[in-house]
């Protein structure tokens, strides 16, 4: 377990600049909430909060699609995988790293959101549940991207991830069956944040969260199977 944690922490450390850039959005939200007219107009503040919240899913895809590629291109992966760590554990470390990076953002957003929305007069009981939805969405989106990145370059891996996440939404839209959204519930989880009004009492369902966690395990398993057959020493350029 320790090597997995070491890989995860190393990933967060390597991604410190993107994480800091993400946190700038949270700071922007706090700034708007405190100093501008938008802070006094609750609806505008809520709009900014929702926007800032769903960005993290895109960051999850970015982290997942580039994690292996960066280590392979720089050849750092050779000195890591020459140690007593299997490829499965290495991928687990990356998934945990992506989750940690997203959790930092969600936590910061949760704190800032609770504060600013509370100041604007919104009931903030739902904020932490919505942050959990976002974190589950990030974890799943990052793992799907990681799975694709085991055999595609980051650009195509991100595209394939977007298609995979969008397909259930498209199917539910065309067939009229909302259950399709639960197949890969990234969209359903993001929608929970985007459609939240904060006026009504918390009514969110835990089902998409549990499904996202289960599907994360499935995609991690697929990623590990594919990655175990890859020649990692071959140039990725």
């Amino acid at each position, binding site marked *: 377990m320790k090597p997995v944690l070491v890989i995860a922490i190393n990933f967060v450390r390597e991604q410190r600049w993107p994480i800091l850039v993400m946190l700038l959005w949270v700071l922007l939200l706090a700034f708007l909430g405190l100093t501008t007219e938008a802070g006094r107009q609750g609806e505008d503040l809520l709009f900014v909060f929702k926007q800032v919240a769903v960005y993290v899913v895109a960051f999850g895809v970015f982290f997942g699609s580039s994690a292996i590629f960066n280590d392979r291109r720089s*050849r750092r992966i050779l000195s890591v995988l020459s140690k007593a760590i299997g490829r499965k554990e290495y991928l687990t470390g990356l998934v945990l790293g992506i989750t940690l990076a997203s959790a930092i953002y969600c936590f910061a957003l949760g704190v800032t959101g609770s504060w600013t929305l509370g100041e604007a007069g919104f009931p903030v009981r739902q904020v932490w549940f919505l942050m959990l939805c976002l974190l589950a969405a990030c974890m799943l989106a990052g793992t799907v991207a990681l799975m694709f990145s085991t055999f595609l370059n980051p650009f195509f891996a991100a595209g394939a991830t977007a298609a995979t996440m969008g397909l259930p939404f498209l199917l539910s839209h065309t067939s009229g069956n909302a259950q399709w959204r639960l197949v890969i519930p990234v969209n359903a989880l993001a929608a929970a944040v985007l459609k939240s009004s904060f006026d009504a009492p918390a009514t969110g369902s835990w089902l998409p969260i549990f499904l996202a966690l289960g599907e994360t395990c499935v995609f991690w398993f697929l990623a590990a199977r594919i990655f175990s057959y890859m020649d990692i020493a071959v140039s990725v350029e």
Partner: protein
Amino acid sequence: MKLALEFDHVTKEYRSLFGRRFRALDSFSLQVYPTEIFGFLGPNGAGKTTAIHLAMGFMRPTSGNGRLLGEPFGHAITRRRVGFLPENLALYPRPAEELVRFYGAINGMRTSELKQRAGEVLEMVGLEDHARRNVSRFSRGMLQRVGLAQALVNDPELLILDEPTSALDPVARVGVRELLLKARTQGKTIFLSSHLLSEIELLCDRVAVLHRGRLVRLGRTDELLESYERTEIAARGINPNGFDKAPDRSSWNFGQDGIARIVVPREQQRDTINRIWDAGGEVISVVPLRRSLEEIFLEVTSGADSTRAGGVE
């Protein structure tokens, strides 16, 4: 006896996107015994790094198999007993000591153990004064020494080193050589791939030469270097003008000290000695001529000897 490293008819083919195949290793067999320093030679593109990457489990062989410390290639737990230094080493940008501890932690070492060990290995490679400096500011030679430190951090039984001294200055190179010799006395096995033939000649108990994915020469270093084809005869008391040097294929060198050094093909050795005696000279020594590893390397990789393929000793 359990072998440190074993390749058993390993073939590795790379395929391009368009299906074209390139065979990097062709039915490659090799056995490395415990506690020896083994030199692995070959020109660029011979397949040395491919063989090493297969042993480390970075890729799978197309056919054949191999064992690392008795376990199949790719067995993660076994790598806890292995230290590896890749060619063109790339490291995460952080202080040297922290980096060595990071690699030790991936190997499952305990934090308390690592604190002491990281300092020890950095001292071994002569970087104790730079332990807190970020490796992104290191020269290539210093990076290579950090690479050696991370390979040594887990006190491995087997060290696999791909070009470990290529970026080092002569002083550092001597340091690494001493480090490797000391490691052997501690019972470690060292598998050393290098282009620096003089290093291999000085360090290695056995060497293998790989060419176009096939093993073309394998043997004990001293045996390979000893030539039974030519002999150097030293003699004195010969008058250079009155001595019949022709018609042999020998080379003659009359020194200022009055000693003649004559290099002759082996079949002419007896005849040359007789002629020295007939001319009233005295034979001082008859020594089989030692070749350099460079000569052997050029000979086997230029095609002249490439038919001697296969893991024969």
